[in-house]
């Protein structure tokens, strides 16, 4: 074995080992390492004494502080619930009208409803509740199922075409695909639907179509959409005379709906959101509308 040599730069000896030119200095371990090792161990020791730490057989050392994360969690959940109790009790028990008239309660609804809506509803209805293709605008469009607080609450609780036994059910039939109407009849009906929302037909031919479409509409569509096309709340069929569209407006989108039908799916929140949360959401949506008016 080779003998250690003095490293000219540090003045330390090498260990005398060499591997393909690599040597190692025999310098002592810097004191500070032992200091920090000691400090870290001491910290751990104190922590072990105070907190649950080491397993002993089927149990473990509980620690002097008696800390228990499960109890601590339960306790802080309880405290948080108690802090909310003041307003929560009020919202749970008061009627919709009372709350809507109570500005401080509505302040809470706005604060809490925003995050609730953002976390549970915005994925479909949008952050601003204005919907998007396939999802209705909750902030502005006329209601599918009626705008009373109870109807809205019911939609939220049981959903639309959802897997809940009490779900609301609605469907726009696929008149084209299922051959319930002929191709010309569908074109006529579509032309009529366009006139409903105020787009005047361009020429003579279109006007004639729309006139024929009106009859087809009365025979095939009015049962759900109403004689005047303003929709029917008990069928969940939309108002066709407004500027709001679930499936996107315009001739092509309307034709698509007539051909292929449509059935929107709104999940049921029964069991997923508490009655209080659902009530807050109902109020939150009503409040959005009130603001927009």
């Amino acid at each position, binding site marked *: 074995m080779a003998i250690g040599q003095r490293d000219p730069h540090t003045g330390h000896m090498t260990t005398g080992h060499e591997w*393909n030119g690599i040597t190692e200095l*025999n310098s002592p371990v810097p004191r500070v390492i032992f200091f920090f090792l000691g400090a870290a161990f001491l910290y751990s020791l104190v922590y072990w004494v105070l907190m649950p730490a080491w397993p002993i057989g089927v149990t*473990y050392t509980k620690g002097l502080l008696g800390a228990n*994360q499960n109890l601590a969690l339960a306790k802080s959940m309880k405290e948080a619930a108690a*802090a909310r109790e003041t307003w929560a009790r009020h919202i749970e028990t008061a009627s919709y009208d009372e709350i809507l008239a109570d500005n401080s309660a509505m302040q809470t609804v706005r604060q809490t409803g925003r995050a609730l809506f953002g*976390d549970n509803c915005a994925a479909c209805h949008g*952050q601003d509740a204005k919907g998007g293709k396939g999802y209705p605008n909750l902030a502005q469009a006329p209601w599918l199922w009626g705008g009373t607080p109870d109807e809205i609450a019911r939609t939220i609780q049981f959903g639309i075409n959802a897997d809940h036994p009490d779900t609301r059910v609605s469907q726009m039939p696929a008149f084209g695909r299922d051959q319930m109407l002929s191709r010309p009849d569908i074109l006529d009906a579509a032309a009529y639907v366009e006139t409903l929302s105020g787009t005047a037909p361009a020429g003579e031919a279109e006007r004639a179509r729309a006139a024929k479409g009106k009859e087809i509409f009365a025979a095939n569509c009015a049962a759900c959409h109403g004689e005047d096309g303003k929709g029917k709340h008990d069928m969940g069929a939309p108002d066709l005379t407004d500027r709001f569209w679930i499936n996107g407006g315009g001739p092509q989108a309307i034709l698509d709906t007539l051909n292929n039908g449509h059935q929107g799916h709104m999940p049921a929140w029964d069991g997923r959101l508490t009655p209080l949360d659902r009530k807050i959401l109902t109020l939150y949506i009503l409040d959005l509308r009130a603001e927009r008016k």
Partner: protein
Amino acid sequence: MVSQLTMNERRWAMGILIALSLIGLTMLGAGRGDAFGVHGAIVAAAAIAMIFVVISGYFAPEPGEERLTRYYDDPSKAGIVISMVWAMLGLFVGDWVAWLLAYPNLTFDAPWSSLGRIRPVHTTSIIFGFGGNALIATSFHVLQRTTRARLPDQLSPWFVLLGYNLFCVIAVTGYLMGVTQSKEYAEAEWYADIWLVVVWVTYFAIYLRTLARRKEPHIYVANWYYMAFILAVAMLHIVNNLAVPISLGHAKSYSLFSGVQDAMTQWWYGHNAVAFFLTAGFLGMLYYYLPKRAGRPIFSYRLSIISFWGITFIYMWAGSHHLHYTALPQWVQTLGMTFSVMLLVPSWASAGNALMTLNGAWHKVRDDATLRFMMVAAIFYGLSTFEGSFMAIRPVNALSHYTDWTIGHVHAGAMGWVALITFGSIYAVVPWLWKREAMYSARLIELHFWLALSGTLIYVFAMWNSGITQGLMWRTYNESGTLAYSFVDSLVAMYPYYIARAIGGLLFFLGAIVGFYNIWMTIRTAPAEARASEPDAPALSGARVQPGE
């Protein structure tokens, strides 16, 4: 490659490859209509292609005895090139994931390109493909130099290198088809896992057989780290992947563990994968290439010993810091947290030992980008271990867990430490392996260095910002005592940081492309006479290898 094998080894190679292609064909038959069958086809195709390679060189003259006077470096050379190829894939996909998180439509509506599939493609190809191949290649190089013994034979190193890459290919192609065990960093399914065990045991055997024939009295510290890496990874891999396949013809399996035991086993694995794959192995690299390049003795032999045993002993206990505030019993969390705090000391001791080794060579650090890669890597190693120990403290973790802070920590370690030490070591070893004066272009190394460093800093700073913002937003309550922000609110706040991260990643990726080009040109534009005048010293005669190496 084949010409370096003895006749006997060629026969063995044929035997192994025929067996492997039969296994592949059986898998193909048994797993028709399943990803298992596709993997059978891949195995068979790879084995049959290799059979042709072996046949083409089968009747070449056998290598002479004089080969035993030289180290066997062909597998290392191949490993380094393969490692860079995986780096290209892994970094490209990583940056794709980064852009995807800012612009969610970048999956182009295909199932294989969804986040859940390409994210593990990134992690596997960068950790196992890039990192793993670099570790295998450099470990063979370092092992021979520091023991003055040639690898025990010519066949088993190739088996390890190519077999390992077969594992990586099966893993990555599996994710794209939706095959996964859903265990992070251990996503590959049961049959790939069994194959890796075979490869890994062979790898360890090479180490032991070479060490047994060593001509140096002592085992150099780099080899302790490489061995800890191989041994611990074998143990972690086997235990965490214990699973029962639903049938022998199907890719899917169910883990032997469930519930909180499953979670603890996974993070015992996951954390020690960080410890022994991403740390110990690369410390092995650092302990050889840094003193070699700096031309300085290791600062302290004793410090190496203390930090080696500190790291190997303490890391094993720390995994539960990944499961703070979960269903895991609190006492297990306490142990994970306290051991993580103690872990800082040996970690900083290693980083300090590396940096102090540079005393007397700082002028080289200034001028030589290769050495600077290694120096900055040691700094990032210190930084990310400090951060890790800090994040392991429960109340800190309450803020950082589930946020991008973790991602920032990961990449300070992965880009700043793992990738930079690898690039530095590769730049050092390529001219030695291919017998060149130096790398093709020192200025391109310099360029790579600055691209990599700025990319890492942009990435890490963006993630620190976004992680802490996220963590704070998720725990902010309004006066009513309910959450102030929805999750989407926090996503909106992340958006600029995600773009910054993707730009940082792009710089890092560009740097790696520059590096690959530089390596490629070094290999290709070899002065012909340099090839001939291979100055490698004989291993058997006991003489030293050339001093520059």
